[in-house]
């Protein structure tokens, strides 16, 4: 027994030494992936790369919602630290600046089409590079819209959107479907409003003040919150859901309502494409995404809300050969046939020179709006200080307002929005 044990231990020792020795020669890549839905595609792509080059690529995907915990524990251990990881926003740059390589001279950085999706640190050094951008807006079931006697061309601003939605809602009984799918306020759904919808008033305020994503203002004024109220009132009025039951409405319910053809409009992003066409079997030809109109002057020229939280950063504290291997891998992903195909299949907007057109119709809508000269609403909400906490306050106020839409309750929403921002900013920087 003892001999057997010592044999096993010796073997383990020799093997681990061998593993260390072989890894040191070529360098290897460890990519800690942020997007669970793209996990399989990354795994497959990694295999192809290893077959072609012999460089080992390990892809691990953190479970949904646990990325920062996973990254923290993985970085803590030098042997298991990822060489490529995700940084989502300015707050992520604050946390990981010491670990993010200056990307200026990397080959992959040279492949970007513009600086819109680059995250820089306080000194202006590019530290993370967006590899896909996403767009959100109001997803429309155009078949139902036509069945109700309307068409997309009618909808060009808030008033025309409201007219169409009000008409559908009024005839919901006879049509068999309603205008908007339920704006649930459960944690699985509320981010669509406290995050995405809130981006609309934030964007217009940023635009007036000449701010940009990453400006991280200490205070906001809430100049466009009346517009936020307009569109929110529309969501909670022209829907089949009972406003007092919104506090527990989930994202799945809302998605199913739209997917099963019980609602014409559904506010969400292009990442829904796979689910709607796959799980719900919707015909891509019947899907379109339109801007979120809320009655701002000139919004006839608005496009979709586009931005990203998916940015690659390279671990600057990894071994030099691993850093090199990681740079090579990323360059291959954005330039090779296999890599660009995979990006086009998985993501909607790909900001690289060699990008192939995405199969995602919502992504195509976003490009079309941009090509037609409409302005894109950038993701100002990436700047939200202490984001989960700020959103919780907005959700609390917004849920209370939905159950009882009075001016007094709206003032609480404004307070959560404006005072909450200043407060969270002081917490984060305190």
């Amino acid at each position: 027994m003892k001999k057997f044990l010592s044999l096993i231990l010796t073997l383990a020792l020799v093997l681990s030494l061998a593993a260390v020795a072989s890894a040191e020669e070529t360098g290897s890549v460890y990519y800690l992936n942020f997007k669970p839905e793209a996990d399989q595609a990354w795994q497959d792509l990694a295999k192809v790369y290893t077959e072609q080059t012999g460089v080992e690529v390990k892809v691990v995907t953190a479970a949904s919602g646990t990325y920062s915990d996973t990254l923290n524990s993985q970085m803590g251990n030098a042997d298991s630290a990822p060489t490529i990881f995700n940084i989502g926003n300015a707050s992520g740059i604050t946390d990981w600046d010491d670990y993010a390589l200056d990307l200026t001279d990397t080959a992959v950085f040279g492949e970007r089409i513009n600086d819109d999706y680059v995250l820089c640190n306080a000194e202006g050094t590019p530290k993370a590079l967006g590899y896909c951008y996403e767009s959100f807006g109001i997803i429309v079931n155009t078949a139902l819209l036509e069945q109700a006697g309307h068409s997309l061309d009618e909808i060009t601003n808030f008033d025309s959107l409201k007219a169409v939605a009000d008409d559908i809602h009024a005839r919901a009984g006879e049509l068999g479907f309603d205008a908007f799918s339920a704006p649930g306020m459960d944690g699985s759904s509320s981010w669509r409003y406290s995050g995405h919808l809130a981006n609309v008033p934030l964007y217009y305020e940023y635009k007036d003040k000449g701010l940009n994503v990453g400006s991280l203002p200490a205070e906001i004024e809430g100049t466009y919150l009346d517009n936020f109220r307009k569109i929110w009132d529309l969501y909670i009025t022209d829907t089949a859901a009972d406003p007092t039951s919104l506090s527990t409405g989930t994202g799945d319910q809302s998605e199913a309502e739209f997917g099963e053809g019980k609602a014409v409009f559904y506010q969400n992003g292009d990442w829904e494409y796979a689910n709607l066409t796959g799980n719900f079997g919707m015909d891509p030809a019947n899907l379109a995404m339109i801007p979120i109109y809320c009655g701002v002057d000139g919004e006839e020229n608005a496009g979709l809300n586009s931005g990203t939280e998916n940015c690659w950063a390279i671990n600057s504290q990894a071994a030099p050969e691993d850093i090199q291997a990681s740079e090579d891998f990323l360059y291959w992903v954005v330039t090779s046939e296999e890599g660009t195909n995979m990006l086009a299949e998985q993501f909607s907007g790909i900001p690289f020179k060699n990008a192939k057109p995405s199969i995602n119709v919502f992504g195509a809508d976003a490009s079309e709006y941009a090509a037609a000269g409409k302005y894109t609403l950038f993701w100002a909400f990436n700047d939200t200080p202490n984001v989960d906490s700020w959103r919780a306050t907005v959700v609390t106020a917004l849920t209370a307002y939905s159950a009882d839409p009075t001016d007094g309750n709206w003032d609480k929403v404004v307070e959560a929005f404006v005072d909450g921002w200043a407060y969270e900013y002081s917490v984060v920087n305190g």
Partner: protein
Amino acid sequence: MQKKRRVDSAHVSSQLIRRPIQKCFAIFLLPTFICFCIGFLWPFIQGIYLSFCNFNIPKDAKWVGLSNYAKAFKDASFVHAFWNTAAFAVISIVLINVLAFAIAYALTQKMRGSNIFRTVFFMPNLIGGVVLGYIWSMIFDAILKRYGTYLTANATYGFWGLVILVAWQQIGYMMIIYIAGLQSISDEMIEAARIDGASGSQVLFRVVIPNVMPSITICTFLTLTNSFKMFDQNMALTGGMPSVMMNGAKVNMTELLALNIYSTYNINKNWHGVAQAKAVLFFILVAALAIGQLVATRSKEVQQ
């Protein structure tokens, strides 16, 4: 049966067997001790060290002295969570122990089906806290919906919802401990009290309760520490909501201490150390309360 067991224990305590065991006790103790060091002692010491540091990941920790503690004390949400937790602990300790004892007392009277009832009352304890939290949030919301409101509409609903949930979960467990205590009281003693002319309530308060003091000690200890350490249920039921702005600061109305520490950690890297400092303060608080309570109730126990 009784006799055989006595023979066995005599064997074990004989010198012949005890001496070799005593000699190599370290071998028996070592695996558990190593696990204890790795899983508890070392993280605990490291945790105390980190509470004096600013860090994103532990290996980059930079010493900052007491500033994390200063920040923790200045944090209004921490103080609010403390008072929430204190109120919650007092209410749930009383409620759980009184109800658990009452049920145990009822189920040790000779009645039909008492075993079934014991099983049924114990079962909620087998369900995990997160699951319970979600299930109860659905139950509460379904009920409150009839009145045009919902669980996170105000702090009162969330607070009492948590009390109900925890009572439902823990009463069965405490009941089992009380039943064991009640069963150890000999029938002769109660019969003697009856013959001496004691009334029903006199038997309860003068004979039964003094004799189950050990169970009361255990149960109050468990309910006290459980209420202070409450996390899963709190997170799953309300997640600290409603969150409101109050006097220029933001307060999570139904947040207890453990959840407050958790959300502090998630603010950004400058708060990791503060969360750690809060956790150390939290440990000192819970340990002090638990020891104080043990001393207080132990002194009331009677020798049987």
